[in-house]
């Protein structure tokens, strides 16, 4: 009886300590994909369209860029890692823009348009900076942390989503993959063309 009691105490302690350790470990920085809410746009699904105003006062829609590979980057002026990524985006925009890449920076900032514009100018940003709205952030999963980047293929589908800074090479790999996607209309045209060719024969 006494032995059973000791065993029970030991097992209970072990279980309790495992739970305790598990909870503590769970507070460490997390796997980024698990940070998105369940309502977040999933990889492979169509990226929610949005309409936001750029620093220049133009209204831009995501759907305006259908057929192009789009990198949507949520950022803020107070976000250190975002600042590191921006020069990479500037270079990648120069390199891949002519091949069909569009980079959209969405500022999730309360610091105001002037401060955002000043920051973007200092960073020599050469892609549109849009003034973010909570509604857009929510549509993309609440944007759990910054930077959060969505890679959208030429069909408007989410190819991948990443919270936090990653290496420049990883970003470039994602961009190349998005650029390699074939727009549905083009694919359809190509099929139609083949059919015409077949008919002609």
């Amino acid at each position, binding site marked *: 009886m006494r032995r059973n009691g000791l065993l029970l105490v030991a097992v209970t302690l072990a279980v309790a300590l495992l*739970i305790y350790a598990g909870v503590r470990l769970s507070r460490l920085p997390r796997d980024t994909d698990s940070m998105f809410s369940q309502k977040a746009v999933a990889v492979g699904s169509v990226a929610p369209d949005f309409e936001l105003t750029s620093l220049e006062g133009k209204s831009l829609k995501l759907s305006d860029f259908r057929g192009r590979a789009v990198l949507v980057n949520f950022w803020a002026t107070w976000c*250190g890692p*975002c600042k590191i990524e921006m020069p990479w985006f500037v270079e990648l925009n120069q390199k891949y823009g002519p091949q069909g890449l569009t980079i959209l920076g969405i500022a999730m900032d309360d610091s105001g348009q002037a401060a955002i514009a000043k920051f973007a100018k200092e960073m020599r940003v050469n892609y549109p900076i849009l003034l973010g709205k909570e509604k857009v952030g929510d549509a993309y999963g609440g944007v759990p942390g910054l930077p959060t980047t969505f890679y959208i293929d030429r069909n408007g589908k989410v190819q991948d989503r990443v919270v936090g800074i990653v290496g420049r090479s990883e970003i470039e790999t994602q961009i190349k993959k998005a650029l390699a996607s074939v727009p549905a209309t083009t694919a359809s045209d190509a099929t139609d063309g083949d059919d015409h060719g077949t008919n002609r024969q």
Partner: protein
Amino acid sequence: MIMGPIGSDAALLEKLAVFGTPVESRKSAGWVMKNCCLGLIFVLFPAGLWASDDFVSVVSASAVTVAAGKPGTASLRFRVQNGYHINSNHPKSDLLIPTRLKLNPPTDIGVGSVTYPAGRNISLSFAPTEKLNVYSGDFNVNAVVSAVRGASPGHYAVHGELAYQACDDRACYPPKKLPVSIAVTVVKSRIAGTRQLNPGQSPHIHN
């Protein structure tokens, strides 16, 4: 969402010490079962408190006793979760959001200067050349609290919030506000200006 005071590891060990008592000295299996359950509660309760999305929690907020017309110092101890840091009160860039304690005292209670600790200079892997000034682990913020002359003796609560913005080594998270509360007891002044109440608790009293 809001976390209350968290049991420290030492407190937790103290709670667990019940298991260190020789089982031989116990009389029944019922006692063992009862204490196992109690132990689980003691262990899981603080763990449950940690299961919050907040990056910072209040560890303790010292109660302050002041005489009417006299100041005292309240000390708030905060804990930043493992793996995260928050900007100090003086981050190295105007763009960064500083940690700030804002207190809203009730009538009859005043709040004076708030003192923040010096931050720690760090560089993160994504920007090894860039220095940040941050708080991580535990840190204290002190606030001078006073009761106006003529304040009625009694218990008061000074509510407020700690505004902070957390990051880890890869990402930054939206600014947050952590509610805080300081219990202030106002007592009658014996002879105004001749005695500071609770000096041990208030080492930095400014007259």
